[in-house]
């Protein structure tokens, strides 16, 4: 049966989803601890941690779900992550005062083995390979 989308949760994509789920869990845990203990110390960094956590959760769901809409959400969330890790990575190097506390994106995700930097790139390649194709000519 042909559909307008090819599933993103097949083959090695399952491993990608698992890694995203772990990262979502890690970012959620960290932001929970940061906000619960000393939010006022570094509100920008901690709010960003929380935002990153939400985006990772959304990206994980978007990779699992079928359909064009979720495909678009996957692109948006994964692009946002790449942008986030690049911008925050640069800012944390040049302006440590703005980011006194660690976020998942600080120093290009060095605290997480650079997984936050590498993962969106792999995710984009995967999304490109699994892009929805129009239904083949119908009889």
């Amino acid at each position: 049966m042909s559909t307008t989308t090819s599933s993103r949760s097949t083959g090695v994509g399952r491993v990608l989803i698992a890694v995203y789920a772990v990262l979502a869990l890690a970012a959620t845990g960290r932001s929970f601890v940061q906000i619960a203990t000393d939010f006022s110390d570094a509100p920008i960094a901690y709010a960003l941690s929380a935002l990153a956590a939400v985006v990772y959760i959304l990206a994980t769901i978007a990779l699992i779900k079928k359909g064009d809409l979720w495909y678009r959400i996957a692109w948006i969330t994964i692009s946002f992550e790449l942008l986030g890790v690049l911008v925050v990575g640069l800012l944390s190097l040049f302006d440590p005062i703005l980011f006194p506390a660690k976020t998942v994106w600080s120093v290009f995700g060095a605290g997480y083995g650079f997984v936050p930097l590498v993962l969106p790139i792999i995710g984009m390649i995967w999304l490109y390979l699994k892009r929805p194709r129009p239904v083949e000519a119908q009889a």
Partner: protein
Amino acid sequence: MIEWFSWAQAGVAIVAGLLAVILGLAGRQPNDYTMGATALVGVLLVVQLVVAILAPAFGNHATGSVLEFYTYLVSAILIPPAAISYGLVDRSRWSTVVLGVACLAVAVMVLRMQQIWAVQVA
């Protein structure tokens, strides 16, 4: 935390993780060895939870944030069951790799927990 136990636990998780990643990439479905190793990693985390709860009563207190420690520990405890249930549902080689990723993630979290418990960079 008891230091030698943490190291042993991280070692088991790393070996289990590498085993599953290699077997998965070699095309094996989840089997008793990879599932069992992941289950062992999960059981050791529960033991670690018991140790962490009892340790302060014996004068072994966490030097770092207790909240952060338990956030890691509770998150880590969730991972092996999730990977194992996925391995039961989806019988493909990639589920074996997922088991490995889960074990390696637990290993990292255990090492981080040991840091929070014992090492403070001031």
